[in-house]
């Protein structure tokens, strides 16, 4: 035998075995191969264990999905909101803490037991819904928001695992429906969804929450321009008026003519923000900002102001009122035709449609359009309230449009918009964007824009006062407050036609007319005739007396000193105006 044969016993093996071995193991040195392969297996183990370690580390770093869930829950509850107060510091909206019941379905051991115990304690909890929520494969579900401390105690005593409480902020409106439209409301997560509440969210509050601040710490209360006492008086009178005249709706607004602040705003029917179920009823919209209306004769004030401000006409300019005004196939009538030439004062006090139309025609279509645009009547008015509506303006504005718009038909504006315009007519000529937040006169002047001459403004005050002395607004002349005002009765458009018996009556009042401080707007939607109104449904018989009652109640609250035995407007306003120039 050779040395090689000694070293490898293989050749001594039968051929079959050699073949099998060769096939299985190959011909290499198996000892060295085994070493290398153990090394390889060590590498594999190291790799597998490294993967497990990496997974562990990612769990630790990426972390706490549970915590994240909690975070979301806290986010929902942390929406602490600032208090909202009226101009005198009365609380209109505030947060109170209320416990809310939640479940963590993955931690609940016996769902059936949990449901049984919970529904026994909270009878208004619906079994099916609770079952559905608790069976969801979620980490966190709300079961009932804002329960009482007693209920919380009871459920706590049941000791159900996977059921817990979070203290939430519940929004409370102590004044109930008084300021409903103005303040708006919040949803169950305390996020503003309407009115000033939504404005708060849109202006930084939501960002603040997202950034994680503004949780429970005290936030600066938000001061509104509204005066709760005035608001209440206005709402009270409007409720009575709405009932008395069987009106579909009633709304009112008090505005400070020098600052543009809205001191009171009521739109009936309204809702209780504490119980927001009826808030989305379309009948309960805020008619002062969200609705647009043809303001009727109230608009004549703009027509006359335009003419006076242009210098082309004065208070004694005469207009032909001998018969109806024919324009194309249309004929314009007056309610009380005079059958003669009338001057501008008479146009206003008799509320002559023909006169107003002739005044506007005298200025021309373009000037009319430009003036109304300058007065902010043709663009959408935006305030703090998120709810707003764009005015309806004719696409093609011809002479016929000017004729009708001159007496308030053909353009529909939000009443708040008209109030802003009238403010400008009487406050010396400054158009001030209205606000629901407290504002000083200086701040208002910073955003104000002069739109008419002071002299024109004096004349407008005279005309408004004159209307209360001898015109259609006599029933609102509350002694001592020198009220001036303009009425408006607009026939409503029903199915594309003006309906004679369905009107929207409006009364715009300023007081005191010699140096106006406040403007009041009262609107009644479809007031019915009563025996005491002798079958009339025009503004003078419903909106005006209502306005009078409101002024009698709110003027003292607004700190207006009553003055008696004042001379008539002719002497007090007009003469003083002439003297000063």
């Amino acid at each position, binding site marked *: 035998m050779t040395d090689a044969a000694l070293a490898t016993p293989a050749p001594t093996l039968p051929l079959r075995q050699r073949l099998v071995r060769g096939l299985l193991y190959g011909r290499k040195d198996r000892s060295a191969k*085994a070493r290398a*392969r153990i090394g390889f297996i060590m590498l594999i183990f190291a790799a597998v264990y490294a993967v497990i370690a990496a997974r562990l580390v990612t*769990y630790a770093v990426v972390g706490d999905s549970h915590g994240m869930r909690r975070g979301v829950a806290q986010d929902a509850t942390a929406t602490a909101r600032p208090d909202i107060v009226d101009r005198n510091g009365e609380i209109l909206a505030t947060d109170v803490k209320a416990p809310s019941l939640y479940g963590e379905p993955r931690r609940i051991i016996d769902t059936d037991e949990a449901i049984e115990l919970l529904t026994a304690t909270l009878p208004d909890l619906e079994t099916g819904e609770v079952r559905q929520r608790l069976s969801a494969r979620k980490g966190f579900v709300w079961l009932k928001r804002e329960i009482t401390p007693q209920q919380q105690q009871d459920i706590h005593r049941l000791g159900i695992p996977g059921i817990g409480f979070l203290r939430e902020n519940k929004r409370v409106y102590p004044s109930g429906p008084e300021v409903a439209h103005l303040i708006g409301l919040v949803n169950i997560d305390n996020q503003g969804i309407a009115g000033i509440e939504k404005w708060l969210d849109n202006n930084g509050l939501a960002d603040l929450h997202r950034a994680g601040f503004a949780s429970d710490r005290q936030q600066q209360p938000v001061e509104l321009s509204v005066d709760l006492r005035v608001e209440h008086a206005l709402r009270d009178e409007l409720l009575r008026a709405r009932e008395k005249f069987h009106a579909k709706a009633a709304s009112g607004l008090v505005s400070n003519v020098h600052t543009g602040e809205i001191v009171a705003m009521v739109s009936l029917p309204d809702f209780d923000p504490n119980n927001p179920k009826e808030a989305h009823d379309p009948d309960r919209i805020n008619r002062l900002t969200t609705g647009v209306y043809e303001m009727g004769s109230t608009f004549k004030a703009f027509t006359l102001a335009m003419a006076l401000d242009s210098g082309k006409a004065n208070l004694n300019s005469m207009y032909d009122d001998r018969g109806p005004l024919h324009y194309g196939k249309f004929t314009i009538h007056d309610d009380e035709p005079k059958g003669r030439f009338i001057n501008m004062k008479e146009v206003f006090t008799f509320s002559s449609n023909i006169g107003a139309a002739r005044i506007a025609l005298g200025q021309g279509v373009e000037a009319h359009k430009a003036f109304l645009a300058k007065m902010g009547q043709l663009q959408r008015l935006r305030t703090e309230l998120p709810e707003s509506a764009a005015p309806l303006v004719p696409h093609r504005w011809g002479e016929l449009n000017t004729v009708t718009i001159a007496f308030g038909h053909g353009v529909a504006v939000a009443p708040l918009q008209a109030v802003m315009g009238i403010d400008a007519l009487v406050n010396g000529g400054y158009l001030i964007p209205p606000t629901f937040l407290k504002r000083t006169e200086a701040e208002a002047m910073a955003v104000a824009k002069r739109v008419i001459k002071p002299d024109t403004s004096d004349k407008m005050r005279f005309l408004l006062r004159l209307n209360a002395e001898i015109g259609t607004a006599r029933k609102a002349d509350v002694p001592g407050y020198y009220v001036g005002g303009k009425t408006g009765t607009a026939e409503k458009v029903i199915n594309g036609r003006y309906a004679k018996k369905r009107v929207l009556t409006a009364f715009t009042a300023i007081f005191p007319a010699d140096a106006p401080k406040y403007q009041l707007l009262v609107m009644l939607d479809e007031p019915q005739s009563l025996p005491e109104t002798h079958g009339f449904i025009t503004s003078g018989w419903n909106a005006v007396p209502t306005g009078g009652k409101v002024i009698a109640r709110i003027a003292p609250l607004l700190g207006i000193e009553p003055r008696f035995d004042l001379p008539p407007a002719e002497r007090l306003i007009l003469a003083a105006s002439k003297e000063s120039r």
Partner: protein
Amino acid sequence: MISREQRTPFSQWWWTVDRLQLAALVTLMLAGIILSLAASPPVAARIGLDPFHFFNRHVLFLLPSFTVMVAVSFLSPRQIRRSALIVFALSVALIVATLVIGPEVKGARRWITILGVNIQASEAAKPAFVVLVSWLFSESARRPEMPATSMALVLLLSLVALLVAEPDFGQTMLILIVWGSLFFIAGMRIIWVFGLAGAASAGLFAAYLLVPHVAGRIKRFMDPASGDTFQVDMATESFSHGGWFGQGPGEGTVKRILPDSHTDFVYAVAAEEFGIILCLVLLALFAFIVLRTLSRAYASDDLFTRFAASGLAILFGVQAAINMAVNLHLMPAKGMTLPFISYGGSSMVSLAYGVGMMLALTRLRSSIEVQSIDAAYGARQPA
């Protein structure tokens, strides 16, 4: 106290055994006690036992386990082979007995009660099997005339047949992995690696098609929305919940819900209460034990020692890796205990037997001793 001067059996053991390895194993056992205290009382309470039932038994089993481990580590390779043969024969007999007279629990016959002790015979069969197969593979290299490879295959198929009959797919998988690895280490040609991998995939695919609950588990792993992944969901959530430092002892919540919190999901319980850092420490201990044994096996000159130590390390390491991976949702749910941490009496004793052999095989031996063994073989080799 333990002097090198006097060669008592104990001092000889002490100075040759891998003391770091021993320390790692004892640490693991102690960790097991603490985690059992965390994970098992809610389970015991839930099934109406004394809250400390599982804990007491855990400790009770730890004492014989420790004894077995140390005692076995005294054995020489030859004694190990012989004891393994006996243990294997006994446990196979027990498995057969289990199949015949064992009670059916959850659709499987895995347990047999002898003298009031529940025994899972397949647990004890695993390490003995690994040692026998290693011996066969080493013989195949040394004594080509012996049909060792075929015998190893026969051994594998018979054990697998018994395990599938129980059925116990987890153990089957483990056995197949270890056998394949040993064959690989023994020098099988690379082409057969692909062959085995192909066979393994085919087997898995067959299980997927034929065994509904295997299919279900794989589907749920791939697409958690397809079925109830409650246990695994809870487990993964407990890792996130625990974070680096855990919620603190007794603050865990998963253990109250998971039915297997004291066995298959003890790792998740550990994470929730003691944090991911502890999990990483446990992982490091397992990795240390496995890699240290493998590196000792690598250094060993004796083929049998090398194969058997590697095989036992792989058995131990794969079992731990599978358990942790399932807890972390890295692989489909598979019931597998975490060595020395999970509760399980027969599992713990057989693990102790396995690591005892691991310690014995990784003991330092003088080169003279090794040569004498080789010489003994050489003398028997036919010229």
